[in-house]
C-alpha cells in the first residue's frame, strides 16, 4: 500500500515551477511531505490534515484531496537549494496507531 509518486525524477532550471503528485489506494488521515538531500536524513516540510487543505512553506505549497486520496506538492520559482528527493508519507489508522507509509520518492534537480 505504498503511495505512488510522480514523476520519478525531474530536472528544472532555476526559476521554473514543478508539481509532484502523490496518490494512495487507501483512505488517508493525513499526508506528510519531506525533502532529503543526498546522504542526509529526510527533513519535514509540511503536513496536511484536511480534505482540500492547502499549505505553504516559502515558495513550496501543497494540497490534499482526501476524497481522491491524492496530494500534490507545488514548487514555484525553484532555487538550487530545492534539489533533493521529495517523499510523501500517507498516514492512516491501523490498530489504533497512526501509521505512515512513504512513497518511493521524486528526485528533483535544479540547475543554473
Amino acid at each position, binding site marked *: 500500500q*505504498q503511495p505512488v509518486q510522480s514523476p520519478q525524477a525531474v530536472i528544472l532550471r532555476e526559476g521554473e515551477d514543478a508539481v509532484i503528485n502523490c496518490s494512495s489506494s487507501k483512505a488517508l488521515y*493525513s499526508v*506528510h511531505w*519531506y525533502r532529503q538531500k543526498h546522504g*542526509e*536524513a*529526510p*527533513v*519535514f516540510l509540511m*503536513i496536511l*490534515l484536511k480534505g482540500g487543505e492547502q499549505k505553504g512553506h516559502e515558495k513550496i505549497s501543497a494540497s490534499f484531496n482526501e476524497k481522491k486520496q491524492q496530494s500534490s506538492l507545488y514548487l514555484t520559482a525553484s532555487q538550487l537549494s530545492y534539489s533533493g528527493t521529495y*517523499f510523501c*508519507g500517507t*498516514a492512516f489508522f491501523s490498530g489504533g*496507531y*497512526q*501509521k*505512515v*507509509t*512513504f*512513497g*518511493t*520518492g521524486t528526485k528533483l534537480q535544479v540547475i543554473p
Partner: protein
Amino acid sequence: SQTIHQWPATLVQPVGSPLSLECTVEGTSNPNLYWYRQAAGRGLQLLFYSVGIGQISSEVPQNLSASRPQDRQFILSSKKLLLSDSGFYLCAWSDQVEGETQYFGPGTRLLVL
C-alpha cells in the same frame, strides 16, 4: 527543543557479524520511535516502531530486532548480518499527543561486506 541522535554515523561490518545501532531522543517524553531502512536510491522502509518501553512492533520479517530499554532509547540489533542488510538506517520520533509529524535522526550508513 527536541533532538535525536544516532550512532555510529557509519559502519562497515563483515557478513555474519552482529549489529547494534543506537538512537536516543532528548527534550521530549514518551515519544513514538521508529526504525527505517533506506537502500541506495530507494524509499523509506519501516522496520520497527514503538509506542512505549518494551513495546515493539515489527513491520517486516527479517534478521533484525529492536528494543526499547528506556523511554528515549531505541536500539536496532542483529545477531548475524546479511549482505542485504546494507543501507542507510534512520531513526525517527513523533509526539504521542500530537502524533502527526515524524522527525528523523542523522542516520547510520551500514555497509556489510
